[in-house]
């Protein structure tokens, strides 16, 4: 983001910025996430764009942790490659994150903790006794508590942010708690705000350009949870696992208000089985997990394809394989999501492109699950799960789906697995006019659900189940293309890789390259309309956070190569557990472009 800090105007003593990237580095118990959270919310309320990024240790009692906030008055697509400001709470935070600071950036550090500073890159260092000043402000035995609020006050002062609005947000957040909590928070905040930093240039963010409608700011797991509620999900079951858990926590607490139940199951196998039971009972049900949990659910997910039951399955991907990197981001579960069960198990796979889209992808998953009576997997990822973005509040009058339970008596012609129709089950409680009741079966079956080993029947039922994918591929919208419809390269990205991919596309275009970018939300089946999109480009570069494996291509690139048998499809892959930096994508695409010309 080094270009972004160029001043727009210098009419007064403050430099006006279009973007600012601030990185807070400390330990997870210092409350640096809440500093970031407050700034993100403020950005949302001042029509600015925001994106956050955090790393959390997977240990319980804390450890080094960062929270990065990217505030911008225009579109913000990534959490920022480089920080303009680094706030270091400890020596180890300083040492680890100094490199993330841009040339000529500002470092605010706790002078009680950080003793050795580097004189490099023209960084402007300001030592402030965060801890001592906070203790002085709050008094008593406050110790470390509250220093996050002190730092928040400092930042508001340095960037000349809307103090009044922020105090409102803080008051609402802490107002629910003990009165002294809010008082101490505001004392620390005011002390930070009033702290005389001395000889430093202060900044001001340009006014936000986002639509002035109601804007909200939250993370991907929250939006996914609320999207499921809006989609009509009232029943579900799951087992705790990082980074999925906060979705089940939200649904467990929220569903009673909506008359529903979310069950904490004894294990992943039970969780998916309970959700399938709820689906069989006639509801739009869901389960979810992260990597290892999805592996455990695979047998039952195959059953849901075979028995043709509607089910939403959320997989918040994390670093694999095995236990892997529980708190890091990766997109290496795509193949498993599509093909992970034994046998031919047609099912749908979707991926949200950003935090806002987590809401809409849940609606789309609900629509597909109902329409095709099939399992639908939503592939979110760790980056989307925890980062905060600000965006337009969804219009519930437009999107709300009322849950239904269709127990209308079925006539004598009705059968659960008719070969000439997409299955729509009759749940328990439904009277069968013909007197014959349906069997739901994981054995290959005839139209009534009776076991059948008949060769012809197996082929016909396989065709019937596959047909759902073919119908959906024809129905799905063309992927969104950013840029021109033709050119030298089309960057394709899915999930959280979309933000940096889009920004990389802009950067390449500004350098004169004929490059566009497309996001794919429907990963399986791929929309038929994708054919026309790819046809306009000499190269197609898939940007994915997974390994290029034995054949040199990432997982989506492998699928595209299988579908199109076209060597113009290439990969930019990485698995370092971190979100893509824009320059990593730029470099990767440039390499492919150069190779193409050679």
């Amino acid at each position: 983001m080094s270009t972004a800090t160029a001043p727009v105007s210098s009419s007064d003593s403050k430099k006006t910025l279009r973007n600012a990237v601030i990185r807070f580095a400390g330990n997870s118990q210092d409350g640096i996430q809440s500093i970031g959270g407050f700034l993100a919310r403020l950005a949302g309320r001042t029509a600015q764009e925001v994106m956050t990024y955090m790393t959390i240790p997977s240990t319980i009692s804390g450890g080094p942790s960062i929270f990065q906030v990217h505030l911008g008055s225009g579109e913000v697509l990534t959490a920022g490659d480089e920080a303009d400001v680094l706030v270091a709470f400890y020596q180890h935070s300083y040492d680890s994150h100094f490199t993330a600071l841009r040339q000529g950036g500002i470092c605010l550090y706790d002078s009680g903790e950080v003793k050795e500073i580097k004189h490099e890159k023209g960084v402007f260092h300001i030592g402030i006794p965060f801890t001592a000043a906070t203790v002085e402000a709050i008094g008593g035995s406050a110790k470390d508590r509250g220093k996050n609020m002190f730092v928040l006050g400092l930042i508001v002062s340095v960037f000349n942010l809307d103090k009044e609005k922020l105090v409102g947000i803080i008051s609402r957040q802490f107002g629910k708690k003990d009165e002294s909590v809010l008082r101490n928070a505001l004392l620390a905040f005011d002390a930070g705000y009033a702290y005389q930093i001395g000889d430093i240039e202060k900044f001001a963010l340009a006014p936000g350009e986002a639509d002035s409608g109601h804007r909200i700011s939250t993370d991907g797991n929250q939006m996914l949870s609320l999207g499921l509620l809006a989609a009509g999900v009232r029943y579900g079951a799951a087992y705790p696992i990082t980074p999925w858990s906060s979705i089940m926590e939200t649904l467990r607490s929220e569903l009673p208000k909506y008359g529903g139940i979310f069950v904490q199951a004894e294990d992943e196998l039970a969780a998916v089985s309970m959700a399938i039971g709820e689906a069989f009972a006639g509801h739009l049900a869901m389960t979810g997990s992260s990597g290892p949990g999805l592996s455990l659910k695979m047998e039952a997910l195959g059953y849901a394809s075979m028995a043709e039951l509607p089910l939403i399955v959320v997989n918040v991907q994390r670093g694999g394989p095995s236990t892997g990197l529980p708190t890091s981001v990766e997109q290496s579960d795509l193949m498993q999501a599509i093909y992970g069960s034994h046998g031919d198990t047609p099912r749908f796979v979707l991926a949200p492109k950003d935090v806002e889209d987590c809401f809409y992808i849940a609606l789309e998953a609900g629509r597909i699950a109902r329409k095709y009576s099939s399992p639908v997997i939503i592939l979110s990822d760790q980056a989307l799960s925890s980062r905060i973005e600000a965006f337009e509040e969804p219009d519930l009058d437009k999107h709300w789906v009322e849950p239904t339970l269709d127990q209308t008596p079925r006539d004598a012609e009705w059968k659960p697995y008719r070969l000439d129709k997409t299955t729509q089950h009759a749940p328990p409680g439904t009277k069968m006019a013909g007197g014959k009741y349906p069997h739901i079966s994981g054995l290959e079956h005839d139209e009534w659900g009776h076991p059948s080993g008949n060769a012809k029947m197996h082929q016909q039922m396989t065709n019937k189940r596959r047909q759902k994918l073919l119908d959906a591929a024809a129905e799905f919208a063309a992927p969104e293309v950013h840029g021109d419809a033709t050119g030298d390269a089309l960057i394709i990205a899915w999930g959280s890789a979309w933000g940096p991919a889009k920004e990389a596309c802009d950067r390449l275009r500004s350098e004169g390259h004929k490059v566009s970018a497309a996001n794919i939300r429907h990963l399986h089946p791929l929309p038929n309309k994708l054919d026309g999109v790819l046809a306009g480009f000499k190269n197609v570069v898939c940007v994915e956070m997974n390994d290029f494996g034995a054949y040199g291509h990432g997982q989506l690139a492998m699928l595209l190569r299988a579908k199109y048998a076209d060597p113009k499809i290439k990969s930019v892959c990485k698995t370092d557990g971190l979100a893509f930096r824009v320059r990593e994508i730029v470099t990767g695409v440039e390499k492919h472009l150069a190779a193409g010309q050679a």
Partner: protein
Amino acid sequence: MSTAVATPEAPAAAAAPVVEKLTKKALTADHPTWCPGCGDFAVLAMFYRVLEKLNIPQEKIVVVAGIGCSSRFPYFMNTHSLHFIHGRALPLATGVSLSRPDVHVFVFGGDGDGFSIGGNHLNHAARKNIKLTYIIMDNFVYGLTKNQTSPTTPIGRKSKTDPTGAIDRPINPMKQLLASGATFIARTHAAQVKHMEEIFTRAIQHDGFSVVECLSECVMFYPGAFDDSWPKKGGVWETIDETQHDVTDDVAAFKLADNLAPGKFGVYYQVDRPTKNALEQKWIDDTQAKLGGTSQKDLLKKRFEAMR
């Protein structure tokens, strides 16, 4: 949930109290695939009879099973039924039971499905006291896969996986269920029709997680397994005298289960404890009472407003 959801037949039933009599004929579906002489036939016949007697509306009966010979049960029932994967019938049935308080959920399965691959689920369905009835047709052997040792196979019994005789200690179903927290635990025998009828009836009428171990002979791979409790074959049939055994006393029940070869038959344990179904419903009711009738859509709108 039941309020938000259309239940078209409910008001109609109230207006016209015509109760159809449930018959064995209506309940009968495919002819069972079991071997001639299999104990499971008697269990199926008895289940038809008990359902007829209790006259549960046919469309409200749900039969679920996992994998195994006995787990083919759903195909032989002309009711809403589901044949699931190995060992997971209980969690699936839990999903049905919790989300549909208006239906009656029955689970059938064998000793491998229930005590081995599905063992963990048995413990948790029991402690949560899920409202359903689970009948374990225990034959002490894996029959569908043709004679391997099961978790209830006695020590010394030869099978294809224990050619010199089983060496692993079998589980004691009664003790395991007591420790798990099941609220109705009973034991019966497929050859004792009257006893089976009484136990099935009581199990179905119990408001909670009711589980019955029903010894059911595999004539193909373990013939004679239960002769020791079958008077016709020279065995001793001994039932639990409930004037002597307090069924609410778990310690007494545990002692009673000390020797199950052949042991006693009847109700080992039965207590009233709130079901998870009731506890979840209470949470829903208490939560909704505080909301003052706000519509569900408005609830979510308010939630978004708080995020501005």
